[in-house]
């Protein structure tokens, strides 16, 4: 394991300290928590937005804290969802009386911890609503299983629900638009290399020289299929096709595209993937409204990428345009 760390058990705490030291005018860390909140939280007369997740996905989630996006992000241990008490602290810190909206990625742990936090908050009279993001088409969506996972598409939920809240949307309106994003966003990922949780000290799985893992999650968990590496174009085609298969697009529909790096992928490769993705989309008669390329939802130093498509209508496009001062999503 080659990492720039001190004590592997302290990476999250030290990262948060470094984050606040870097951006003291934008964010604060709630005392004795792993919660990063807007410096000016709670923002009066605004629904509070909270997202969470294990650490190791940087810039998610603290990077999305800021005007126009999240009010707070709760950091768990690396790849481990944060505990209910931490989430509860975040909820309390961002509630201005308009209620708090939680963006949860669909993992058993995240959902359970958030549910418990919600119970705590409701016991104190705070209104809480949530959305469970499940954009990963690598995983089957069935009521008998855990359902699809939440991956990079979550960033679009942050952006759009955050914009709605910034515009003064009510808790119900924020939930409605978040639900709409979740209904219209699909992703799939792949990895060339695994990643190493600092405290574990060894990679989560092993890939041979010519192998890649398709349908990878964002926690170093194995994907759904291991196969031989292909060209960027073949890969882009396969990923895009798998995403499109799970969407209901008609010619003329507009999409926002996210080509997300998992941590160690040179931006060069992401753009090479985008070259083909955008070609495929235009060949099929879909219109690319906007494209986001970069590290938005990572898995430590995993090499690989994910492709996300979000079907947009006028409402979603308008909300995408709204100003955001989040550090990792400035516009």
């Amino acid at each position, binding site marked *: 394991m080659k990492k720039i760390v001190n004590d592997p*058990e302290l990476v999250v705490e030290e990262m948060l300290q470094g984050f606040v030291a870097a951006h003291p005018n934008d964010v604060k860390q709630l005392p004795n928590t792993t919660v990063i909140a807007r410096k000016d939280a709670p923002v009066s007369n605004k629904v509070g937005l909270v997202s969470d997740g*294990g650490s190791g996905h940087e810039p998610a989630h603290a990077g999305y804290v800021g005007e126009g996006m999240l009010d707070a992000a709760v950091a*768990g*241990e*690396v*790849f*481990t*969802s*944060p*505990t*209910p*008490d*931490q989430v509860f602290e975040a909820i309390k810190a961002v509630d201005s009386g308009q209620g708090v909206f939680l963006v949860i990625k669909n*993992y*058993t*742990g995240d959902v*359970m*911890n958030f*549910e*418990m936090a919600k119970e705590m908050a409701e016991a104190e009279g705070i209104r809480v609503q949530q959305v469970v993001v499940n954009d990963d088409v*690598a*995983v*089957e969506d069935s009521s*008998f*299983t*855990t359902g699809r*996972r939440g991956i990079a598409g979550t960033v679009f939920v942050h952006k759009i629900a955050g914009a709605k809240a910034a515009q003064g949307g009510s808790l119900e309106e924020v939930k409605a638009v978040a639900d709409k994003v979740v209904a219209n966003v699909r992703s799939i990922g792949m990895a060339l290399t695994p990643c190493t*949780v600092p*405290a*574990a000290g*060894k990679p*989560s*799985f092993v890939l041979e020289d010519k192998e890649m893992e398709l349908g990878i*999650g964002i*926690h*170093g*968990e*194995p994907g*759904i299929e291991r196969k031989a590496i292909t060209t960027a174009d073949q890969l882009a085609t396969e990923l895009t096709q798998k995403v499109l298969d799970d969407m209901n697009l008609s010619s003329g529909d507009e999409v926002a595209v996210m080509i997300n790096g998992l941590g160690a992928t040179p931006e060069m490769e992401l753009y090479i993937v985008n070259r083909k993705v955008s070609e495929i989309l235009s060949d099929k008669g879909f219109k690319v409204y906007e494209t986001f390329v970069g590290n938005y939802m990572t898995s430590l130093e995993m090499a690989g990428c994910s492709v996300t498509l979000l079907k947009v209508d006028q409402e979603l496009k308008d909300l995408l345009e709204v100003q955001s001062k989040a550090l990792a999503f400035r516009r």
Partner: protein
Amino acid sequence: MELQIKQVISWMEKTNEKIQSNKEYLTSLDQAIGDGDHGLNMARGFQEVVNKLSSSNYTYVSDVLKDVSMTLLSKVGGASGPLYGTAFLKMSTALKGIETVDYPQFKKAVVEAVNGVKERGKANKGEKTMIDVWEPIVDFLQKQDNLEAKELESTAEKAMEATQDLKATKGRAAYLKERSIGHLDPGSVSSYYIFAALSEVLEEGA
């Protein structure tokens, strides 16, 4: 059997010892079909549990269990945190106000615990989760009139081993579908440590 505060604390200490010395093993099990943090999560949580218990004074067993629950809830995270937190919280509630826990009371507490886990996790037996250890333990307890420590351990062990052949339909391993078969469920292994530790405490106490 009889459980008093001292023994419950000893139970948690022995659980912690097992978990600390198997931290890497649990993590490697979770790397195979999960995200590789189960050993880290459990080690962090149970270390805090014994720290907490050793620095507190208790009147009732239920208070000890409540602290166990709260500590796990606030230190573990992931799926196992709320689940184990719920299990111990349900036991605590079931044993409220009792100074020395007898076998029927204990039995009832474990039943409540399993029900709590199932409800929290929306899972049932056979889905390759810790429930596949807890539920066989309940079945075993229901059949006995007094608790045989050795048998408790072997029941838990057998149940834990049986998770190897299951296909996961809940938790992170479910994403692997067929590829989850042939691997032990990490949460079932940590649950086994909990019952193995209890068995040791009971044997010592006997």
